[in-house]
């Protein structure tokens, strides 16, 4: 039997959601009705506009509560990755590398293209890491090279070749006009043109990157918001062993 799920407000299956949005109209009773109507047009019912505020002469902000009848079958949902696979800890990863690989694993990472944000690659690679999760530089059995931001794809690949990297991490934070997809695609195309796609484990990361998106572009994995160094390291070392890379 299908396991249908709907949003839960304070009663099972009430379908309640909170929405906030703005409309390019002046605030007033017409705007209030427009906000309600637009929520109904989206398929909600019982739409209630609880807040309306003018933001300028031409724009108005709304907070709306509404209910939906739509649900989906929980049993048919597949996640971006397998939630039952837990990452190893830093110590476990180091021990795993010693036992199964027997040398330091070389990881090269950068934020590529014009993207100037180091925050993502730093969270994964810097000694200190992020949110009390140490970065790869702290891992005894990992040799981590963080090239920083605004690194051309060519430079990153050349560097990975020169340092015999096992894995390359490509970070993309800016997503305006799909620049992240463009940069990531170019990276894979460059590697393929050199016939070296198979030489490295390639991982894409960034707040808007999903495993599915990364796989579609040709990466081995993609890591999004909430990823820590151990998630990335676990993937790399397991994949290396799985594929017999030493």
């Amino acid at each position: 039997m299908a396991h249908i799920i709907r949003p839960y407000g304070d009663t099972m299956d009430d379908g309640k959601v909170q929405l906030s949005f703005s409309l390019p109209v002046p605030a007033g009773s017409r705007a209030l009705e427009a906000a309600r109507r637009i929520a109904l047009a989206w398929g909600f019912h019982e739409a209630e506009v609880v807040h309306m505020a003018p933001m300028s002469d031409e724009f108005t902000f709304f907070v709306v509560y509404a209910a939906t009848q739509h649900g989906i079958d929980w049993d048919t949902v597949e996640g971006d990755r397998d939630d039952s696979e837990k990452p190893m800890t830093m110590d476990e990863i180091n021990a795993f590398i010693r036992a199964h690989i027997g040398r330091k694993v070389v990881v090269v990472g950068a934020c590529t293209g014009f993207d100037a944000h180091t925050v993502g690659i730093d969270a994964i690679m810097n000694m200190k890491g992020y949110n009390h999760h140490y970065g790869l530089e702290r891992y005894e059995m990992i040799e981590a090279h963080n090239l920083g931001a605004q690194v051309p794809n060519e430079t990153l690949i050349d560097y990975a070749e020169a340092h015999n990297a096992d894995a390359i991490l490509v970070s993309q934070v800016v997503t305006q006009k799909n620049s992240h997809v463009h940069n990531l695609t170019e990276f894979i195309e460059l590697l393929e043109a050199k016939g070296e796609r198979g030489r490295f484990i390639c991982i894409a990361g960034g707040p808007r990157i999903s495993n599915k998106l990364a796989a579609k572009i040709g990466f081995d994995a993609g890591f999004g918001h909430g990823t820590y160094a151990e998630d990335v390291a676990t993937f790399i070392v397991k994949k290396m062993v799985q594929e017999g890379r030493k």
Partner: protein
Amino acid sequence: MVTNKLNLPKEKIDRARELAKNICAPVLDFIDAHTTVTVERATLRLLGADGVSTEGAPVPNLVVDALRDKMSEGAAVWYANALVQTGLEQGELDRRIAEGFNIATLPMGDRQKAKELAAALARRQFSRIDANRAYRESKLEEFKGRSHSPLLYLIVATGNIYEDVKQAQAAALAGADVIAVIRTTAQSLLDYVPYGPTTEGFGGTYATQENFRIMRQALDEVMEREQRYIYQTNYASGLCMPEIAAMGALERLDMMLNDSMYGILFRDINMYRTFVDQRFSRMINAYSGIIINTGEDNYLTTSDAFEKAYTVLASQFLNERFAYAAGLKPWQMGLGHAFEMDPSIENGILYELAQAQMAREIFPEHPLKYMPPTKHMSGDIFKGLVMDNMFNFVSKATGQGIHLLGMLTEAIHTPFMMDRHIAVETALYVMNGIESIMDEIEFRPDGLIVRRAHEVLDRTLGFMEEVERIGLMESIEKAMFADISRSRTGGKGFEGIVEKGEGYFNPVESMLERSLGLA
């Protein structure tokens, strides 16, 4: 009026300023002896050189590129010589240069005559800057008491100047006192300034003189309607610091991001280049009455805000020293810092309060520029909004000068119009509600806040003594700032530095130094 709540020892603060002076002295000697391609281009801009080739190369770039082997004499005399030798009107000469005419092919005629012409051209542009400054001052006087305190600072970043204008006007109407147009990603690494109005950019909009003018006009409209001065801000940092400062002076910008070391650390621009460029650009900012904003907040995106708090204070002292050396007055020094401590730290907000109050007391006349949480913002917009409002609280309580409003959607997307609306509404609520809080509150002399401030000051002194001992450039090489290491000859723009020759001539520099009392 800043009241003393932390009882920081004056002799320690004086000692830090003395250390800053010693640390900066050898760098200032280097600066004095050198010019750069962008200093020369800024000089040409302040002689009125304008225009662009069909390939998009600005006239100042074409002139300086043609004069590369004469750079030690300064570009101004050669540009003026071309006017004398050809007898052309300036606009006509610029047009021919844009079409490929190489002024370096002309022999030097009467050098004295060329110098006098160059000085006259500079005076013409300076009088435009004087008029801008006078206009700003008259409007600030007319609308006195209408701005928020601290000034509320909002960013627009659509990539399209005409879209920016709509968002900026809405933001100003909503209550923003300061509008900053974020630049497109990587403009800081261009060794020229793009030309004309622009409608394409990534994560921001190109800083061009025409875009400055368009935004100025839009903000002035809102100013008149709201009877409140709206400050316009842009970013000087990068390979064209002096040129962007010149454009800002000509188009009456009011604030400019201008840090003495940001380009080195965070954009990998050569350190010699940045040091020379920042001085010239800051002299222009000083003369045009612009408030600079320094970039200490950036340190905390790569280093830990709790552990490395002293590097922020040390950098504030260095930025202050470099600012004085460029003729800036304390009221023009928007020294930066940020609310970036890990939100899981127990008493973290008290440590933030200590840091902000400490900065306030050490730099009492400076309009401190306080940045909101970014590093620890997540997709949880509800928690993010609370974090932003703790920041609003600390900022108001400690009397910061320029308050960059935090966005609840930080780390998700560039702000929606409604994100800004929520930011302004909640900030005004908090700030109005605690208007006089610090008149009512004193800190325990032996309490956590006072002890933390003293400890940060002590660590700053220790750190600055170390920097003094090994030298500023060596300290940067050793990653003592922001945990980032940069080599002296590495980074972008190194090839653009030239030692000034015996006969180096720069009428803009002389006029700036003379009027700022630096000569």
